[in-house]
Each structure stands twice: as structure tokens, then as C-alpha cells.
């Protein structure tokens, strides 16, 4: 019996084919690095694309303890967590004000904040370096947090402001009549209702700052203050590249980002605002 595919079946097959190719294209490098992270450099040199014959989990322990990755990881966590927390709270407050209040020079202030994103980082990094040295913030984790907050603030405000502006004004009026101050309204109404947008900014900022390299490499030179992306440099020498350890270091750096994405993206975004108003 001859079986033929219907037009919708053909479309579905083509779509599945496209998704499969795209998944292989985007996930391929990740899988390759994951495999290399469990192989030694010698093994990789012999057969770069081979599957691991022995799983060398000791490499993770070695990178963590002997190659200072525990310090880099701690630095990354501290710096990124601080920067994202400040960005979320301060950016949220600023976005709330831009979305809800009319005040003088509002447009101008908004424009000033946004004008900072038109300059590529390579243009401002020298000036920034000078400023950080002047204020004693060079080679300082606090300094890097401040820089991260500054570079991500416009986008954070932009995302949150557009979301806050969509929250019906009646909700705020109802809270005012219920007796809440503007401060309480921000914490008890704006932030919880805007949780989908908040989670978006948390994910976006965490991923971008976790992987940030340029400002970190310019503003941090002391080894005990380096973040994870700089830690990978440790295995890159003039004469030798320890590819196996680079892969292990990359996996240590990547896994937290993947976990954050898995945990935040699905759960918080659904159904928060449905039913607020008819």
C-alpha cells in the first residue's frame, strides 16, 4: 500500500527539519565544548570531534581548586548579583516614575539616559578607565558593579517603563484610595504586577553581565578580583593553549547561565496580568 503525505504533513515535516537543523546549529558548539570539558588536551589534539572515552570529571575539581576558578566564580556571582539587584530596584523605580508621573524635563532626562547607549563601549572605555583610576575604583569589584549598572540601566528602564505604562492607571488609583503611599504602591502593586518584565530584565542582565568581558578585562587586572570570563584567559598562553581546561572553564562559566534561563523563563512570565481589568 502506497502512503502519501498530506500538504499539512509535508509542512510539518519541513518545519521539523528546519527546527532540527537550527537546534543542531545552535546547540552543536555547546555539546562540543561540553564533550571537550571532560577530555584531556592530549585526547582532544588526537581527535577533536570524538566522543569522550573516559569522563575526566577531575578536570572540574582541578579547575575549581588549582586554577582559582572558585575565586573567579565567587567574584562573578558577587558582582553580577549586586549589579542585577541594583539594576532591578533602581531601574524599576526609575521606570515607575517615567511611566506614571508627569514632571518637568521628563523627556529630556529620558533622552539623556538613552543617549548613552548610542556610543559603542570601545569609544567610552578609555575615558571610563581614567575616571575609575581617578576615583580609586580601578581594580575594584565595587567599581565594576557601578560600571555594569551604568551600562545596563538604559535598557532596563526601557523594558520596565514600557511594561509599567501598560498597567492600568485605575490599579494605582484604587491602591491610593485603599490608603497606600506611592512608595508602598511601587512595592506592592507595580513590582508584583510587572513580574514578567522584571524577570525578563533579570535574565537579560544576568546573562549579559555574566558573560561581559571588555570592561572586566580593562578595569580588573588583579587575579583575585577577576570574573569567570577572564579566568578562561588563564589557560591561554603565548606558547600553549590548554584547550581541554579552557573547555572545562567555559562549562563552569556557562552552566549557571543555562540554569538561570531554565528556572526563570517559563514560570514567571505567564498569567500575571490577565484579569486585572476587563
Amino acid at each position, binding site marked *: 500500500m502506497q502512503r502519501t503525505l498530506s500538504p499539512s504533513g509535508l509542512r510539518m515535516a519541513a518545519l521539523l527539519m528546519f527546527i532540527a537543523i537550527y537546534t543542531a546549529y545552535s546547540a552543536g558548539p555547546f555539546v562540543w565544548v561540553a564533550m571537550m570539558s571532560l577530555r584531556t588536551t592530549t585526547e582532544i589534539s588526537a581527535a577533536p570531534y570524538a566522543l569522550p572515552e573516559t569522563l575526566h570529571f577531575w578536570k572540574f575539581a582541578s579547575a575549581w581548586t588549582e586554577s582559582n576558578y572558585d575565586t573567579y566564580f565567587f567574584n562573578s556571582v558577587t558582582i553580577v548579583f549586586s549589579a542585577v539587584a541594583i539594576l532591578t530596584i533602581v531601574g524599576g523605580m526609575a521606570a515607575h516614575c517615567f511611566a506614571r508621573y508627569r514632571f518637568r524635563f521628563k523627556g529630556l532626562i529620558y533622552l539623556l539616559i538613552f543617549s548613552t547607549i548610542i556610543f559603542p563601549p570601545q569609544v567610552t572605555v578609555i575615558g571610563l578607565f581614567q575616571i575609575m583610576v581617578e576615583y580609586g575604583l580601578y581594580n575594584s569589584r565595587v567599581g565594576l558593579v557601578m560600571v555594569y549598572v551604568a551600562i545596563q540601566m538604559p535598557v532596563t528602564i526601557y523594558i520596565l517603563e514600557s511594561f509599567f505604562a501598560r498597567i*492600568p492607571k*485605575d*490599579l494605582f*488609583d*484604587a*491602591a*491610593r*484610595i*485603599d*490608603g*497606600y503611599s506611592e512608595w*508602598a504602591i511601587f512595592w506592592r*502593586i507595580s513590582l*508584583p*504586577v510587572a*513580574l514578567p518584565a522584571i524577570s525578563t530584565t533579570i535574565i537579560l542582565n544576568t546573562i549579559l553581565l555574566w558573560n561581559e568581558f571588555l570592561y572586566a578585562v580593562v578595569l580588573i587586572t588583579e587575579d583575585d578580583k577577576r570574573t569567570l570570563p577572564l579566568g578562561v584567559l588563564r589557560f591561554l598562553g603565548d606558547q600553549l593553549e590548554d584547550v581541554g581546561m579552557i573547555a572545562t572553564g567555559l562549562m563552569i562559566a556557562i552552566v549557571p547561565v543555562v540554569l538561570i534561563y531554565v528556572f526563570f523563563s517559563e514560570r514567571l512570565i505567564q*498569567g*500575571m*496580568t*490577565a*484579569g*486585572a*481589568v*476587563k
Partner: protein
Amino acid sequence: MAVVALDNICKSYGAYSAVRDVNITVADGEFMVLLGPSGCGKSTTLRMIAGLESITSGTLSIDDACMNGVPAKNRDIAMVFQSYALYPHMTVRNNLGFGLKRRQTDRAVVKRRVDEVAASIGLTEYLDRKPHALSGGQRQRVALGRAIVRDPKVFLFDEPLSNLDAALRVSTRAELVRLHRDLSATMIYVTHDQVEAMTMGDRVCIMSDGEVAQIGRPMDVYLNPASTFVAGFLGNPPMNLMPATTDEGGIQTGSGRLAHAGFAPGRKVTFGIRPEDLTSTDDAAQSVISGRVISLEPLGAETLIHVDAGGDKPVIVRGGRIAAAEIDHTIHLSCDPALARFFDPQSGVAIQPGVSQ
């Protein structure tokens, strides 16, 4: 329980004047309806009473205490919004208790009060649901419950029924009237729906273009509109208005004559008559209006007869279930002179025959 008094209240946004010299006194326990078309200033007036808009000039007082600078939270008022304005991240229970918690009410008292109110408006089984899991009518009741639970001095309603379907609107209307009777609270209700105004209000305040056009009991306003605006706004279909000229002992409508004492001859007036006050007559000499029937609208219980009497707009007559009229036939209409109303053609203000204007 409170008396709300608005004394020469004005609201301006730059050069634009949204509300002008509004004077309203809402008695203790009264149900006052602010009625008017979109943009007439009724919602702005309500928001000024709520404390959500500042007052440009004039005095707002509740129980003789000036409220002009008092924040919304200290006015002891509750408001039901058109959009319901339920907090989407909170359950029904938390929505109801949110205002009480802010006032440091004891947790046991909050729970008891929320349970009582939920039971009174049929929400007990939905207390643990979030707003998105409720129907439109249930959300509306939560919004109502949130106002009731605080036991405020004054209830404010901003078009609370306009998002409901027709059947639900009728039942919720009755529920609100019952609520007012039970609570005996002062209520101010904004709507553009004249049926709501006529059926719910102790008094109706009709607003036009930022000003009060007329205040009175619904039937008084309906029967004796103070201006052509009120006559044309209230009633569906509205009052028929047409130019007329007075003669000795009556008025000439152009297509007929109404005997009416009290007018000096030769004066131009606007003659108004409700569609239900016109009756067809076979006697052309007795007709107030004569014209050609141009269309019939059978509505089930009644038929609206549109008559071309030579004016800009057709005259509408409310006929019986089966109208004794045929399209393109001439119809003669008469009315009781006592039901006729007259207005000044220039100002639109009502005039009374025999009273010097």
C-alpha cells in the same frame, strides 16, 4: 454617613477648563447620579471628590470638613472603577482585605469582615481565586465588595456597569439599589446611561460641557427639562424639539397649532414634546403637528413612528404595538397642552408661558 458638598468647583488643565463652577450638595444617605455624555466632566468631578485629581478652585467638603488638600486615603471614601481595578496578583480574599490591612486592622477582624462581605455578595466560594479566574460579573462583585468591606463614609462609582453584558447589567443594577437601601450610605454614581440614572438615583445631576445643566429627581428632570440639552439628552427617543411662533392664545408649529394660554403673540420659541405624549388624531384642524410617515420602527412592545413635519429632524411618535400608521401616509398628531414644554430658541433655557422672561 456623610454630606458631600461641592461649592463652585472648577478644574482646569492649562487653558482648558474641564469643570466649571459645579455646585452640588449630596445629602446624607442619598444616591446621586452624575449623568452626561462623554467628556462632560462627570468623571473628573468624581475623581476630584475621590482625591485623585486636584481641585483648581472651589471647595469640596465632606461633613463640613474641607477636603481640598486631604489625600485620597484620608477621605474615608471607597471607589468602584469602570475597569474594576482588581489587583491581578492577589486572590479575591487579599483584594477585599487590602485596604483594611493598610489601616492596621486586626487580622482576625479583617478575616471576619472579608468573610461577611463575601457571603453577602456571593463570593465565598471564590475567595481563593485570582481575578483572571473570575467572570466579568464576579470581578464586578469583587470590586463592589472591596468598597463595602471598608465601610466608608461615601461610595463613589465610576461607570461600574459599562463593561457588563445587558442581562448582567440589569441584575447588578438591582443589586446596587438593594445595597444602597441596606447600607443607607451616601453614594455618588457616574454614568452616561440614562436608564441607570433614572432607575437608581434619588436625584440626577445632568452635566454638559463641564457645567451642571440640571439637578433634580429623575422624573422631575424627565418631565421638566431645564434646557434643550437636557430635553434632548434624557429619554430614548429624546424629546421632539421644533421651532414655533406664538400667536393669540397658542403657538404655530409650522404644520399645526397648539392652543396654549400665556404667550404674547409674535414670539419665537422652541416647542418640545415627548414622543409618548403625541397621539394621532383624525381631525386635521386639531392637529399640533402634521406630516408624512417616513419610517416605522417596531420594537415589540411599541412602534416608533418617524414623521416628516417639515423640520430638520423627523418628529418621533411612540405608538402602540401595532401602529395605526402607514409609510407615506399623512398623520395628524395632537397632544395635551399641559405636557408641552417651551424653550428660548437662543439660550435653550426652559420658559414658562405667562412668566416674563
